[in-house]
């Protein structure tokens, strides 16, 4: 299998990597860039644990090849906090107990980041609908919704 040398731009930093053509973006982020905050829960595009932002849009990093992501601005959970300070969405997740085991959390944080950037005044019904993109087995979603609502309310 042919290897490809490419540069991924993740959270503003350039990662020069060499990967086989079939390597997914999720595997490249985790194994080649050392960014293990992005998790894999199903590897068939349903659970959303691997959600990252590619040019601002939430995508399933398990369904995109690393070679497709060259030249794009990729954002992952590692880019949310600034220094030692959690960003408002991360803070809201802990304040509202929106995470338990934390495995799905990076995907939800990136999904919600995109939602709030797209429409900070999003109505609750649409939020519920958009959050149904990702799966969580611990929380029952209620507290995730509350956390996202709290951030939206603070921005209004």
């Amino acid at each position: 299998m042919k290897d490809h040398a490419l540069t991924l731009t993740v959270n503003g930093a350039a990662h020069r990597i060499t990967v086989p053509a079939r390597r997914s973006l999720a595997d490249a982020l985790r194994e080649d860039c050392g960014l293990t905050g992005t998790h894999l829960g199903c590897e068939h595009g349903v659970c959303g644990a691997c959600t990252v932002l590619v040019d601002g849009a939430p995508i399933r990093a398990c369904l995109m090849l690393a070679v497709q992501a060259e030249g794009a601005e990729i954002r992952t959970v590692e880019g949310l906090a600034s220094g030692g300070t959690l960003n408002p969405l991360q803070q809201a997740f802990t304040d509202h107990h929106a995470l338990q085991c934390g495995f799905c959390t990076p995907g939800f944080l990136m999904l919600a980041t995109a939602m709030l950037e797209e429409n900070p005044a999003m109505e609750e019904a649409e939020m519920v609908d958009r959050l149904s993109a990702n799966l969580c087995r611990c929380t029952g979603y209620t507290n995730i919704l509350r956390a996202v609502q709290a951030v939206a309310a603070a921005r209004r």
Partner: protein
Amino acid sequence: MTRIVGRDVKRIEDPALLRGRGRFVDDIAPPGLLHVAFLRSPHAHAAILSVDCSAARAMPGVHAVLSYADIAPLLAEPRLRVALPSPAYRQTLDRPILAMDEVVHVGEPVAIVVATDRAIAEDAAALIEVEYDLLDPVADAVAALEPDAPRAHRTAPHNLLAEFTLAYGDVDAAFAAAPHVLRESLDQHRGGSHSMECRGCVAIPDAVEDRLTLWSSTQTPHVARRMLCDMLGLAEDRIRVATPDVGGGFGPKLVFYPEDAAVAVAARLLKCPVKWIEDRREHFVATTQERDQRWDVEIAFDDTGRILGVRGEVIHDHGAYTARGINVAYGAVSAMPLAYVVPAYAMRCRSAVTNKVPVTPVRGAGQPQGVFAMERLLDAAARKLGLDRAEIRRRNLVPGDAMPYATPLRTRGGMQVVLDSGDYPRCLQAALDRAEWDGFAARQAAARAQGRYLGIGLANYVEGTGRGPYEHVSVRIEASGRIFVATGAAAMGQSTHTMLAQIVAEQLGFDMANIEVVAGDTAAAPLGLGGFNSRQAVLAGTSAHVAALKVRERVLRVAATLLEAAEADLEIEGRAVQVKGVPAMRVTLAEVARAAAGLPGFSIPGGAGPGLAASEEVVIDPMSYANGSCVAEVEVDEATGAVTLRRISFVHDCGRALHPRIVDGQVLGGIAHGIGNALYEWMGYDEQAQPVTTTLAEYLLVTSTEMPAEISIGHIESPTPLNPLGIKGVGESGVIPVAAAIASAIEDALSPFNVHITRVPVMPQHLVAQISPEAVR
């Protein structure tokens, strides 16, 4: 009055998880790491005639391809002997690490491939040639027990794995004299756990010391170490099993699996680190599930609705091997009567071997099925008598003034079941009030006038929590002044670190940031049972409390000497001990710890011996019984059979809540799981026992849109007398009554059509078939 315990303090797990700095098993990548793929059986039942690995071994990047014949010489014990003891067994079905000469379920591991990366390992696995001779599979638990059924294991005498009857009172006399008897046949299904993180392990051999570390996403690391020692023939000091962050457990991760052993064997053989991460498809065919139970049950009751007796038969799908025991079946049958005064009870249960993934506990562990059966019978009885469904329950619940209430039941360990505390009727009333039960008839009538079908239903449950006998916790203060807590308890997302830190901080300075907790590591705790059965807050929490009190006593004795003050005048505040109200007269915990560590030739201040440490394994044999009541309100589309959950009202009692917000979180997650069991989650197999739902697109987990718009959770706190903190477990509570309450609500909504719910999950096609049978013909 407590300052930390019982309060919504910050979870210490959160910061790392929110920043993407958690360390889950797949995040562990030591240098030289090799990756595993398993070749799994594509057949539900077949004899293995030959395994040819030569092409796979020849592939570049492949380091080893091992079938059973290759690993057998390395094993002191080739089978996983994990079955909990019981006189009920009728045969032994321990599973091998890799299939020997027969495969008995789709997904059973046949060979392990180790390669430089996972993709290559999977490519190589596809090159292994296995010659199978297909055998008749057993796809259904009820059919499995027919005399002419094929055998799920070709050399087995029959498909009966275990058989027992749970009985007390003269049930036949009760039925003979009863004015009313009703019968139900119920088919229940639960599905998989589906933690968002699948299973996985990394085995790291240390050639210098001839040791092996297994990082595993297990709920029971000490059991895993014992199994590895037995199977590899190694002493305990050769093997460490440690858990990293675990991305949810929900039951199946308590089991020791063939893959854990095979990966450890491969790492020892190859003398380099080896990792296996289960993918979701493997999770569907290789991680244990709960599945089908058939209940044929009867209730006898008098004209007032008072229960006279319950009896019946259960057939439980055990799967292809014994991966835990009879506990799910036993839990189901013993949960059934628990909330109510049932004077006579007899339930015969048979566990049937099928050619499907082994069955072990999934959150709830049989209890949801027992509750479902009881609540279905009570709904039927209420209907027969024209009684309000809440009223018939009120008349039969164990009354609050009867506590502690000694039931005639025994646990699977032989201990009497004593309901230790609680007020079940009060709990029910609180749930009914939240649900506005009394006003529902008017809401329902108004909706019907508009052609909409609303329904309301309810269920009560009692959950056995805090399975003993103990959990290990040690507490020690080091010379830095930092407090180290180590436990055999294992964390899988339920806030175990926070829970233990809270309890210890309450006694040792109230500063949770000064506490380091190590959970689920055999190197840090000499003993441990691990995480299951809603037990860790009860058992580990109690050991932590008692150990922290002992360390506190030592701290105060040493500090009293150093400060030349009376112990009674001292308090531990933050990272120091001070004279009460006089912060200037203080000595730091670090100074106390250094003094207690001693100096050569000097006596230790305080006279209590060296060090500031205590270890506890507080033994609590009896279980503490939590309880709750759930009311569900639904709307059903009579044309499509679609069920919309409008509202869940849930009131529960888990004794004293250590952290109310975490307790709510546990209940919410359980409710979501129960909604899945009620309406969506179905692990399908065809007639050849071939699984037909092996992706999350086919097997439906609840998402945010399936949750009811309104969820109301209430607490009643009836502290248990069984432990000093008054705690009961809560991890599984939420799931237990939900399917029963939703079934009751659907039946109520569709009462104009006489719809009768006898199975879960309730699927739209089942409802449409009953609403308009002519339409589906």
